[in-house]
């Protein structure tokens, strides 16, 4: 069958857009391993810049990872019970709370950061610790955790599962940890990857909340772009991408809903014949 011209024009358009988006990323990564950006790749390939980044900004990478992990722990502890309660309650207040929870995503990060500074900036020790950044990250990422766990809970009849566990004698905590959590594993996993990815890459909020001693990777990146050689900034981007890509791939793998297996046919034919006999 011959494909119509429309297909080819659409194909070309798609490739064009992809190229437009991907080429800068590749260019940037190339720049990070080029001896001299202005001379181009023919000046030689080197890992010098990457080492320099690690030398200058290793603490920002550590801090980013530390904040991401703790942010994940906090959102797990807060987010799963919140999603559970929201899935259980069907009232107007529950829906309002759900909307309320998403506000930090809708409001510009700068505004949230400013609000945090205005409210808690006076507590000096807190203001100057990375805990201040953590609070911002938790605020920003919590809805993603709640949403993805809630989505899984709403798609399963977890109430009946819980009732049946209760009928078998399981206490609330036995039900929660033995039935609820294992059965929304896919949502928890998707939410976790989302939270870590967002936390590692978060810039808006973090830029406002950071102090010279509490810089995360993206803040450091901005800093290096502003004050360092272009090659160092590019190498930094490379490091960032290497960190974040596995998370994004994981997100794609677990985030897309798993396809259900086809239903098993009901028993074998010999049994069917037997059943018909009994049916009479």
């Amino acid at each position, binding site marked *: 069958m011959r494909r119509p011209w429309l297909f080819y024009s659409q194909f070309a358009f798609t490739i064009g857009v992809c190229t437009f988006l991907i080429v800068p990323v590749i260019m940037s990564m190339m720049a990070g391993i080029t001896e001299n950006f202005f001379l181009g790749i023919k000046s030689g390939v080197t890992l010098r810049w990457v080492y320099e980044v690690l030398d200058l900004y290793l603490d920002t990478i550590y801090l980013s990872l530390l904040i991401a992990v703790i942010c994940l722990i906090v959102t797990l502890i807060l987010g799963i019970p919140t999603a559970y309660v929201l899935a259980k309650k069907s009232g107007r207040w529950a829906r309002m709370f759900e909307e309320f929870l998403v506000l930090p995503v809708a409001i510009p990060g700068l505004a949230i950061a400013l609000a945090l500074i205005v409210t808690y900036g006076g507590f000096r020790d807190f203001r100057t610790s990375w805990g201040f950044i953590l609070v911002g990250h938790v605020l920003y990422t919590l809805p993603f955790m709640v949403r993805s766990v809630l989505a899984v809970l709403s798609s*399963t*009849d977890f109430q*009946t*599962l819980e*009732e*049946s*566990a*209760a*009928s*078998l*004698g*399981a*206490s609330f905590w*036995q039900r929660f940890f*033995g*039935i609820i959590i*294992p*059965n929304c*594993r896919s949502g928890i996993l998707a939410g976790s990857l989302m939270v870590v990815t967002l936390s590692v890459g978060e810039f808006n909020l973090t830029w406002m909340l950071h102090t010279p001693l509490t810089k995360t990777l993206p803040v450091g990146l901005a800093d290096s772009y502003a004050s360092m050689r272009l090659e160092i900034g590019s190498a930094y981007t490379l490091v960032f991408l290497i960190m974040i890509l596995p998370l994004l791939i994981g997100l794609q793998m677990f985030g897309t809903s798993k396809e*259900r*297996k086809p*239903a*098993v*046919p*009901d*028993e074998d034919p010999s049994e*069917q014949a*037997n*059943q*018909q006999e*009994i*049916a009479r």
Partner: protein
Amino acid sequence: MSDLKDQGTAINLLSCAKTFAGGVQALEPLDLEIAGGETVVLLGPSGCGKTTTLRIIAGLEEPDPGGRVMFGDDDVTRLPIEKRKIGMVFQSYALFPNMTVRENIAYGLMVRRMPKPDIDRRVGEMLEMMHIGDLEFRRIDQLSGGQCQRVALARAIAVQPRVLLLDEPLTALDAILRTRLRVEIDQLLRRLGITAVYVTHDQGEAMSLGDRIVVMSRGRVEQIGTPRDIYYKPNNDFVAEFIGTINRLRGIARGDHVEVAGASLPWSANRSGGEVEILFRPENVTISNLKSAHLKGNVVTSFFQGDRTKLILDGLGERQVIIETTDRVEFIAGQEIGFRIDPDSMIILNT
């Protein structure tokens, strides 16, 4: 498996009503005594309060203040479901998808902290009893509907519950499997001697499983009785209509007979005046010659069903009349036939 045998715990509901938030009364105050080892079926259309009653017994709903639930001599009204020592089977099976068949059956024993060797023995017994030994290590999504229901039953029985509650356990299955599992459940309940409460909207299931049937509608009990009582002596026209097929004709009482559709039927009550309703089942008539017939009608359609023929008649009032005969005669549409109603099985209600 003699340890499975149980004397059975009696269940006693004392004026249990249920009003849901928003003021909807799902259940009017209900008193129900269920003897130890008895199987009681709660039967009725959706929204009749049968599931609410079951959930009150289970401890998933609390009755309105004043209502009490007794298991034997224990007042369990305030006990949550997990402390009531019941077994429950759900329409959707509610098997745990994160566990294998074996883990599902073992779950109730595990949360009770039973020693591992005892769990293994008990699970083995259950697998054997429900004929699902070869499914032991399957995941739940690898089971068919019938297999799921067997696992759900095994799981509920494994914990040796005081009472077994079944919430429309066969509704999600196809007709053939339903009949087969109905037989299995019946044998199982007899063998265990366990007190069982079974909720269904299927009258066939109710008749074959129940020692007694509680017919409910709109949150009220319409009749409590053995399947025979319910079928032969329905209290009112709701019960009569709900159980099996029944014909209804309007008539006027005239002393020792009732005038119906231009003919007269014998009546023992001997009371004159007033409209009455005559109810009779399709199988309680005999075709007779036109002269000695109680009633005459014209055949609209006839369905040959092998052992009997089902006839739909008109000319007997606004509604068509359905009768059944085992006569080996072919009936033609339009033919006028006469039939007699067995006077013992005729039900006459005042309107």
